């Protein structure tokens, strides 16, 4: 308890710095160990497992460096960084859905108007407009532009796809920098911790849920979408998210019970987001998006941002509502 108190007495900057030192130190240790182990000769199935592990480890590195950059570069940098993520994720999403030629103008609107405006709103902390810009104004504008293109074929379906892509890739993700910029009067300068808190909680929930669904082997809720996703595993995942949140309460503006509740919410929403993305993958006929060499050859960014894109808006709104910010 003494250590916790000592930690609380540090300034927010020092705490964040310490956090990153811990995270990067841990990552470095894991990476060096993995490298040393890989120097010995191993059976082929082990090499395959190791390859997957290295891929995941690389993703974690990229994520950690990203958040460090987001923190170092301040509000402007964070906004630009997540704006770039949104752009890449939306590009990947649109590639995988079948758009028609007449969607061209709507897509230009999505990429070159909606996305920059949404991030401008975040960067300038216009949170009231920010939360309704896409659900209200863009929701109405997209079908109008689309109708003006004069192509009635599969009109609703095409518009729904574009709207959905915008909502997940732009609206959802833009809530991450919004969290960073959210000002808690009781604890100024704590925004970076909230994003970190959200990412850790969502990741813990995701990993625990996956581990339990393999171990419990209980009945999957929707076999056609995911052979492993079960209600029990999901609940355990969300609960472990809550536990992680509770343990991390000291870095947030929350009290322990509040941190627990926020962790439950974010963990639950994040794992559901991953589940929804699985359904989407099945629909697009892709087993693993990152490996879609045929069309995209992309990095599979959409996969990795899905839990964040689903958890961040829920987290942001509940925090704002509960703390009346």
């Amino acid at each position, binding site marked *: 308890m003494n250590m916790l108190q000592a930690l609380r007495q540090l300034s927010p900057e020092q705490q964040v710095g310490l956090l990153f030192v811990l995270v990067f130190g841990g990552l470095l240790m894991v990476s060096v160990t993995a490298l040393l182990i890989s120097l010995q000769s191993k059976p082929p199935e082990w090499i395959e497992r190791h390859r997957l592990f290295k891929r995941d480890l690389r993703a974690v590195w990229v994520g950690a460096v990203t958040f460090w950059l987001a923190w170092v570069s301040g509000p402007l940098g964070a906004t630009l960084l997540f704006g770039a993520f949104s752009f890449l994720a939306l*590009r*990947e999403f*649109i590639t995988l859905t079948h758009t028609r*030629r007449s969607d*061209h103008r709507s897509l*230009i609107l999505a990429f070159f108007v909606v996305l920059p405006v949404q991030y401008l709103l975040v960067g300038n902390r216009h949170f009231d407009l920010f939360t309704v810009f896409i659900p209200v104004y863009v929701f109405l504008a997209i079908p109008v532009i689309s109708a003006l293109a004069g192509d009635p074929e599969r009109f609703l379906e095409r518009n729904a796809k574009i709207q959905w892509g915008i909502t997940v890739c732009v609206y959802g993700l833009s809530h991450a920098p919004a969290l960073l910029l959210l000002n808690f009067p009781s604890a100024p300068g704590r925004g970076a911790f909230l994003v970190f808190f959200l990412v850790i909680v969502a990741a813990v929930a995701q990993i625990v849920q996956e581990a339990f669904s393999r171990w419990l082997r209980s009945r999957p809720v929707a076999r056609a979408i995911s052979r492993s996703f079960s209600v029990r595993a999901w609940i355990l995942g969300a609960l472990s998210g809550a536990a992680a949140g509770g343990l991390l309460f000291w870095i947030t503006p929350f009290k322990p019970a509040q941190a627990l509740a926020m962790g439950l919410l974010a963990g639950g929403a994040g794992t559901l987001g991953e589940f929804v993305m699985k359904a989407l993958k099945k629909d697009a006929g892709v087993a693993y998006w990152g490996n879609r060499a*045929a*069309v*995209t*050859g992309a990095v599979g960014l959409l996969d990795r941002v899905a839990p964040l894109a689903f958890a961040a808006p829920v987290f942001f709104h509940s925090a704002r509502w509960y703390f009346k910010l």
Partner: protein
Amino acid sequence: MSRADLMGALLAFVARLITGAQGHWKGCPPEALQRIYFANHQSHLDWVLIWAALPGELRARTRPIAARDYWTASPFKHWLTREVFNAVYVSRQRTDDQDPLEPLIHALQAGDSLVIFPEGTRNQTGVPQAFKSGLFHLAEAFPQVQLVPAWIDNVQRVMPKGEVVPVPILCTVTFGAPLSLQDGEDKRDFLDRARDAVVALRPTAA
């Protein structure tokens, strides 16, 4: 770094930002050999896409073909094609005393690689039209030059005909195994074989 180099770097960056410009080297590695790349042609962006998908060190010696009357019409177009892309100019009007392939032959004699679109024109149907005979004549005259088929995928979605602003959508360029002209092979047979080689590179699950 000259202004042309900067422009080239900028264009390659924009092409990667918008399309990803992923090069998949299925049939041959990206090597600094003298080659003629031939591909399907659906959009104005095709050349830039192939160019951006090539590794940087191959770009300088890989040249596009440009119609002289259009691409020298304004100073900017002329500068862009001459300085940035080092294009080979061909005239679209046929004159009796000149072989239209002559500028290409000069470029190949100088050791450069070329990118050609043997359909001759852009085509929106998704299936390439019959190839024009230029490829055959070049293959005949330069048997030592590798003929590499390439399939450009998805680019028609980036910028449909009549639009000016491109939409960001990921595209790929798939490079296949080099072909060569066989002894006594008929012109039509060879051109059909070359076309089939390009079509065979099309990704199956689109």
